[in-house]
C-alpha cells in the first residue's frame, strides 16, 4: 500500500465528497432521518484519519500501520453491514410484516458474522497478516454484497418508488463488489505485489464512486417522505382545517 499522489488525491476527494454528503443532508434537515448514513460517513472519516496518522507516524511498512489498516477495514465492513440493515428497514417502511421477518433474519446473520469475526480474529491475532486477514475481509465484503443485492432485488419486487434509497443501494453495491473481487484476486494470487497494488487503487476508487453516487442522491434526488410521517401530517392538516375555517379572512 504505497501512498502515491494518485492515492492522496483520491483520499482528499473522498473527504470532500463525505463532507458534501453531510452538508446536503444537513441542509435538507435529514441528518436525523439518515442517522445510519451519517454514522457510516463519520466512521469513514474517522478511519481515514486513523490510517493517515498510522501512515505518517509509523511508515508504510510498519506493523502498526498494517494493524490500523486492516482492523479499521473490519470495523468499516461491520459498519457497512449495519447500514445495509438500516436500508432494509427503510425499504420495508410500508411492509411491517415483511420487516418483522427480515429483522429476525438480519439480527441472526449479524450475530453470526460478528461471532465468527470475533472468534476467528482472536484465534488468529498472532498471525493476522498471513493470508488470513485477506480471506476474512473477502468473506465479510462478500456477505455485505450479497445482502445489498438482495435488498436491491427486494426493492424491485416491492416496486419501491424511493429513488434516493435506490441510488444509495447502488452506491453501496459498487463499494462492496470492487473490494470483494479484488480481495478474492489477492487471495488467489497469493498476495503478489501486482494484486496488492491493484487493491490500493481499486478500493479507494470504489469508495469515491460510492460517495459520488451518494452525493448525487442527497443533492439531486428528492427523498420520499415515509408513510408514517405523511400520515401524521395528514392528521395534523385535518385537525387544523376547522381552525382555519373559523379564522376571519
Amino acid at each position: 500500500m504505497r501512498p502515491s499522489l494518485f492515492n492522496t488525491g483520491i483520499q482528499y476527494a473522498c473527504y470532500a465528497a463525505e463532507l458534501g454528503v453531510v452538508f446536503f443532508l444537513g441542509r435538507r434537515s435529514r441528518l436525523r432521518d439518515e442517522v445510519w448514513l451519517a454514522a457510516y460517513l463519520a466512521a469513514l472519516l474517522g478511519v481515514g484519519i486513523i490510517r493517515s496518522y498510522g501512515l505518517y507516524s509509523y511508515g508504510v511498512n510498519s506493523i502498526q500501520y498494517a494493524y490500523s489498516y486492516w482492523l479499521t477495514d473490519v470495523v468499516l465492513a461491520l459498519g457497512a453491514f449495519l447500514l445495509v440493515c438500516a436500508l432494509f428497514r427503510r425499504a420495508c417502511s410500508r411492509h411491517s410484516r415483511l420487516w418483522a421477518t427480515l429483522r429476525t433474519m438480519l439480527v441472526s446473520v449479524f450475530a453470526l458474522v460478528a461471532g465468527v469475526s470475533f472468534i476467528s480474529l482472536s484465534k488468529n491475532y498472532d498471525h493476522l497478516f498471513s493470508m488470513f486477514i485477506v480471506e476474512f475481509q473477502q468473506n465479510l465484503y462478500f456477505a455485505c454484497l450479497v445482502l445489498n443485492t438482495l435488498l436491491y432485488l427486494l426493492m424491485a419486487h416491492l416496486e419501491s418508488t424511493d429513488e434516493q434509497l435506490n441510488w444509495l443501494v447502488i452506491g453501496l453495491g459498487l463499494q462492496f463488489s470492487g473490494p470483494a473481487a479484488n480481495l478474492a484476486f489477492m487471495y488467489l494470487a497469493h498476495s503478489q505485489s501486482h494484486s496488492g497494488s491493484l487493491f490500493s487503487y481499486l478500493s479507494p476508487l470504489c469508495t469515491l464512486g460510492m460517495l459520488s453516487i451518494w452525493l448525487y442522491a442527497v443533492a439531486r434526488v428528492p427523498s420520499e417522505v415515509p408513510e408514517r410521517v405523511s400520515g401524521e401530517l395528514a392528521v395534523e392538516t385535518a385537525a387544523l382545517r376547522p381552525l382555519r375555517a373559523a379564522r376571519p379572512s
Partner: protein
Amino acid sequence: MIMATLILVISTALFFFYIQVTCQKILRRKFDQEYAASIVNANRLEFPAVRKALEEFDAPVDYARLRMTLRCDFLALTYLLKNAGNLNQRYSHEERLLIMYGRALFFSLFLRHLLQLKEKPAVLKLAAVLQYFANIVGQRVNRVRFGNLAPSDYLLSL
C-alpha cells in the same frame, strides 16, 4: 480456492451490474421537453431510424453499416456535447460515465457479432445513450439561444 474463485466471479459480475444499473438510471432521466428531435434533424443523425427499424420491423442487421452509422452518430454527439452551448467546454461526470458506457457497448456489439449472438439489445442500449446525448445538447442549445428571454421577448428585442 473454489470459494475465492466463486467470490471473484460473482463480485466482478455484480460490479459491472451495478455500473450498468447506474448508467441505466441516468438514462431514464426525464427532460421537460423532447430536445433530441431538432438536434437529430439538424445534424442528420441516423440512430432514431436504426432504432425504429429494429423495434418496429425487427429488420435484419447489416452489421458493418450499423456499426459505422452508430459510430458516426456517437462521435458527432460527443463532439457537440463538449462544444455546443457548453461554456466550460468540458464533459460533466455523468457524461464521462456514459461515454465510457457507450464505448463498452460498442465493444459488446463487436463481441456479440464475433460470437454470433443477437446484436439487437446492444444496439438499442446504444441508441438510448445517443438519444440522451442529443437531449442534453438540445437542452443546452435551447438555453443558450434565448437565455432568460421567452421566444417572443427575443423577437421583440430585435
